[in-house]
């Protein structure tokens, strides 16, 4: 991984502490990194227990959301009527603020994990579908010409040319999904839940244990980061033939 990310992390922690000093914010508004570190150690088991619940919701949400999103994109590509009828639905799914839908989802799916997973799915559906669909319809015309000349069947064109060519776009969509899915899960927990980091934050906030709130936030941020890098790695493996032309360092 290298020492550079560690330096960045240290730098962020220092900035955080400087912010606390500069604004003079009391610990019940903005606790410093040391206070949060203490809570992470003291209440580690509680935090981990709830973190696992949220992590499960996020992972399942990404899995289901990506599958449904990819399938939708392929449907849109393969079938013209779908483009007419599904597109508006797609845009609406993005336009509606999720926290407005959250109470409805909880009412329909109950207070367990299902509603939180549904929230995560909803929030990533548009990014994944839109990105993948975009890649599928912008296939290089030269390749499509070649396929036509070779008398390729439409299904073969889709499966062997459009799809592989659109995989980098899918990768971008998945990266966005990885960073946004945690929001869906946490908002779902805020509306109604008995476990998870979102629930823990609500509870700690009501008890004025602001250091615990920030500890939960910190864990959430770590999870989101880890998820992003994992998806990034996977996405790159998905498209081994397309090298990145920008050096990483």
């Amino acid at each position, binding site marked *: 991984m290298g020492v550079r990310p560690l330096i960045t992390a240290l730098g962020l922690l220092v900035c955080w502490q400087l912010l606390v000093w500069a604004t003079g*914010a*009391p*610990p*019940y*508004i903005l606790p410093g990194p040391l206070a949060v570190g203490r809570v992470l150690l003291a209440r580690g088991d509680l935090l981990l227990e709830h973190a696992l619940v949220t992590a499960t919701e996020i992972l399942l949400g990404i899995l289901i959301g990506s599958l449904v999103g990819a399938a939708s994109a392929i449907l849109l590509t393969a079938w013209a009527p779908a483009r007419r009828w599904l597109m508006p639905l797609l845009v609406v799914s993005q336009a509606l603020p999720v926290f407005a839908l959250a*109470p409805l989802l*909880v*009412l329909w799916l*109950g*207070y367990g994990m299902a509603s939180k997973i549904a929230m995560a799915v909803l929030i990533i559906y548009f990014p994944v579908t839109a990105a993948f669909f975009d890649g599928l319809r912008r296939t290089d015309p030269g390749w499509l010409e070649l396929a036509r000349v070779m008398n390729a069947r439409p299904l073969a064109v889709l499966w062997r040319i459009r799809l592989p060519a659109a995989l980098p776009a899918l990768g971008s969509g998945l990266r966005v999904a990885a960073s946004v899915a945690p929001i869906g899960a946490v908002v779902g927990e*805020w*509306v*109604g*839940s*008995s476990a998870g980091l979102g*629930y823990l934050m*609500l*509870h700690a*906030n*009501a*008890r*004025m*244990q*602001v250091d615990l709130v920030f500890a939960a936030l910190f864990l959430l941020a770590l999870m989101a980061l880890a998820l992003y890098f994992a998806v990034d790695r996977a996405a790159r493996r998905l498209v081994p033939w397309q090298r990145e032309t920008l050096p990483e360092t």
Partner: protein
Amino acid sequence: MRRSAVALAVLLLLAAPARAAEKLTVMLDWFVNPDHGPLIVAREKGFFAAEGLEVDLVAPADPNDPPKLVAAGRADIAVSYQPQLHLQVAEGLPLVRIGTLVATPLNSLVVLASGPITSIEDLDGRKVGFSVGGFEDALLGAMLERYGLSLDRITLVNVNFSLSPSLISGQVDAVIGAFRNFELNQMDLVGAPGRAFYPEEEGVPAYDELIYVARADRLDDPRLRAFLTAVEKATLWLVNHPEEAWNIFKGTAAELDDELNARAWRDTLPRFALRPAALDVGRYRRFATFLEERGLIDNPPPVETYAVDLFAR
């Protein structure tokens, strides 16, 4: 010409300027509702102005913010809850209770009147929804223990603000955190009346549901005493002229003029603190002991450090 101009200028300068009203920020606990009757009446009937105050009533996005903002010096007074004050003080927030708005508990355990639960014992093995307040398990635990039950005999589900919908839709069998003057009327109006169990009748010490808190180092601010004087006047006026007071309240905003608010107003009227500044030390001591026994706070400090009667200092 110049002489009269100078005379005019001197006269204008000597004319006693009207005392500019002092601004005061009061953060409410929630959006404006009948619980805030005395505050609305005080503003609309000029009781605040008579004390030289220009009061800004602000509704928060999150009910947990106002005490934090007052503690941080960003607001002057917050409407908060006595139980939460004990928790906040335990976490080191420099807050002091300076007055009471609603002098009875409003929190209640509510079930559907048409449902199978007729007494607290029937809650055995059931689901209870709650709105995160920080101490609902203490409240519920005490009520259950009276009937030989404990918290592990029930399932607690955080339904946050959907107390009535979750109960009516059957997703939970009971809810704790419903205000008896609001949620009960709400359920009645949608045709699903509720049955309430009151904590203070089931083993929980009585407490002030709504109080005014200020920062501990600002207690000598004369505006605070002026505020309480105006609120006392408004409360007494409200008690003497309930119909007129309701008309004033509902006239301030269109969304307040409906059946739910009318019924809530009627139910809240007898609960307003008739002596807002007066302090019942024993009540705060008893509730602190109760929270300590339930494991929510350790070693509560003397009541005088977080609850005062400003006029008795």
